């Protein structure tokens, strides 16, 4: 289904602009006509007044004969649409108009010479019984106005054509780009999650939209990949304990003879079930943290107090496991967060170090502050993690030993990453500068 041109936003805009243009031109035309019409009438009246004054002057200085002379001259000078009349007691003395009613001042009347024409001019009694009229046929004005209207119509037609063509071109390019976006979206809906919208690099609104949609698609694709990975990992990681469970139950049924043997087999089966449940619990907890709902319960947390608690809870545990746990004292350091989860983050990192490093390893927990963020550092001087794994260990189910010989479900570090992200921070693993082992850094933004 193609986006139809007439329904596009840019076409609608072009149509609106055209309508505004049409109305403006019409208003402009009417105004111009009114102004020119009234100006030209005024001009006619002024000329006519001058004519009447000249005839009147002639009469005043040299009598009726001179007035007649002036009238004759004016009549000769006048074009075919200009009129003068000098009449004495209802009889024409000179001029090109028939005798008429002796109205004075600025007057207007139908032309007695040409049907449908109107004459405008000035009439005056220059002496008792002596009447003068001078005026013009309005056909002049109409002719000028007609030319103006024609010119405006031409201009209007050309502008309209340009506007329509421009609108069409803009709409077509807009439609073409929208079509491209729709096509890509449809391809993605059909399952091709790798498709992306072409970006022209013009940095306009459509380009920005395309960039945002592409970023959104990247995020969705990453989540989908993660989901796919997790689903297959869950299936894989569940198969082992479920297989053990099944074997134990089968063996109990086949081999157990005494109540003690049955009890032992059932205990083993329960342990297998617990292992599966603990895997589910860890997965659900990570999913819940990633959901972000716990942000609603954020409260001020003193990280220095959490460090102190880490020392109190794990100092003895580390000692019993022949590890040395050193927690560097820190001044009170408040951030907004979830205390329970932040402690679990620290606990996971410390336990990770205790479980995965040999006896004699030194574990250090420290807090580093700067203006923008707070960093929790948990480091050990154990054998370390291969550098190529530093980025992967925070993925769910990732384990440094592919054989999965070590106990644990490989979700502890994924949970720490989820907790860091929930707080708007991040977690990284690196090799300590000039030393062995691994250093985990959890950067948390300071609260405003």
């Amino acid at each position, binding site marked *: 289904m193609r986006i139809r041109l007439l329904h596009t936003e840019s076409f609608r805009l072009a149509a609106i602009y055209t309508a505004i243009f049409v109305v403006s031109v019409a208003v402009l035309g009417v105004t111009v006509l009114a102004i020119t019409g009234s100006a030209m009438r005024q001009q006619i009246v002024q000329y006519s007044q001058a004519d009447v004054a000249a005839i009147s002057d002639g009469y005043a200085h040299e009598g009726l004969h001179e007035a007649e002379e002036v009238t004759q001259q004016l009549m000769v000078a006048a074009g075919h649409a200009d009129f003068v009349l000098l009449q004495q007691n209802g009889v024409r003395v000179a001029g090109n108009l028939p005798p008429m009613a002796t109205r004075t001042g600025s007057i207007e009347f139908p032309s007695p010479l040409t049907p449908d024409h109107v004459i405008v001019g000035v009439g005056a009694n220059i002496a008792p019984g002596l009447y003068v009229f001078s005026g013009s046929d309005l056909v002049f004005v109409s002719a000028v106005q007609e030319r103006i209207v024609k010119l405006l119509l031409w201009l209007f037609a050309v502008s309209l054509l340009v506007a329509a063509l421009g609108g069409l071109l803009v709409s077509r390019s807009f439609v073409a780009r929208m079509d491209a976006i729709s096509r890509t979206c449809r391809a993605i809906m059909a399952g091709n999650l790798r498709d992306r919208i072409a970006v022209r690099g013009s940095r306009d609104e459509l380009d920005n939209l395309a960039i945002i949609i592409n970023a959104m698609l990247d995020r969705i694709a990453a989540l989908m990949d993660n989901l796919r990975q997790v689903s297959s990992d869950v299936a894989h990681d569940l198969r082992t304990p479920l297989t053990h469970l099944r074997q134990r139950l089968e063996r109990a049924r086949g081999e157990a003879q005494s109540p003690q043997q049955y009890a032992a087999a059932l205990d083993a089966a329960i342990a297998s079930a617990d292992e599966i449940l603990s895997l589910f619990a860890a997965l659900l907890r990570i999913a819940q943290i990633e959901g972000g709902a716990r942000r609603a319960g954020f409260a001020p947390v003193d990280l220095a107090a959490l460090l102190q608690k880490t020392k109190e*809870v794990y100092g003895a545990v580390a000692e*019993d496991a022949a590890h040395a746990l050193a927690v560097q004292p820190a001044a009170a350091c408040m951030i907004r967060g979830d205390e329970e989860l932040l402690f679990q983050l620290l606990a996971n990192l410390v*336990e990770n170090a205790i479980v995965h490093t040999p006896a004699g390893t030194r574990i250090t927990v420290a807090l580093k502050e700067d203006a923008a963020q707070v960093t929790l550092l948990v480091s050990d001087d154990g054998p370390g993690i291969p550098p190529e794994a530093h980025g992967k260990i925070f993925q769910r189910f990732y384990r440094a030993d592919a054989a999965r010989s070590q106990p644990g479900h490989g979700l502890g570090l994924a949970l720490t990453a989820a907790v860091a992200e929930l707080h708007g921070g991040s977690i990284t693993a690196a090799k300590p500068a000039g030393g062995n082992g691994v250093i985990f850094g959890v950067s948390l933004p300071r609260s405003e």
Partner: protein
Amino acid sequence: MESMKILLIEDDREMADGIAQTLRGHGHEVEISGTGTDGATRARSDGFAALIVDRMLPGLDGLTLVRELRTDGINTPVLFLTTMSGIDDRVQGLEGGADDYLTKPFAAAELLARVHAITRRADLRGETTLLKGAGLEMNLIRRTVTRAGHPVTLQAQEFLLLEYLLRNVDKVVTRTMLLEHVWELHFDPRTNIVETHMSRLRAKLDCGLGGEIISTVRGTGYILRAH
């Protein structure tokens, strides 16, 4: 443990029967209610020693039920049952007035220990300044402990551990209960936190002062015996 009358408000029939069987097996009297509305009515009328309330219930949900009971001044101890996916239910349940919570699925021994713990003697609950039992005296203000009159010096974590054991004297406390109530850890640690601190506490308490007073209950937890 003397026999108690317990009201179980749980709509999952199989779960309810399992819990009831466990409790009855230990000499308790159990009534089962399948809906929140019915449960709320019965919780008000009869003299129950404890209520076990599921979070998800038809009619009236468990959280609202506990809140309404507490608002109406009914202070029967409540054990709140939540699911694995409802981590926030725990916080809400405790804030709503539940005395403890338990996440499904759970071991029978865990359930028993929790029910017994919430019904502990009133004088061992809340604001006391002096705890006594098993020849021990614990001053909660001065943070001191004596055994048979001799002072015992404890680390902060060991003190909290002993306080919890003393408040639940003669009752089994599970490893999970200790993790949750002493260390406020709501996850399963991969190290022996409980065992480590327990062995240090025992060593300090037993140091030339007499016999073992904290016993291990195999596969379940620990018990501090008064005598």
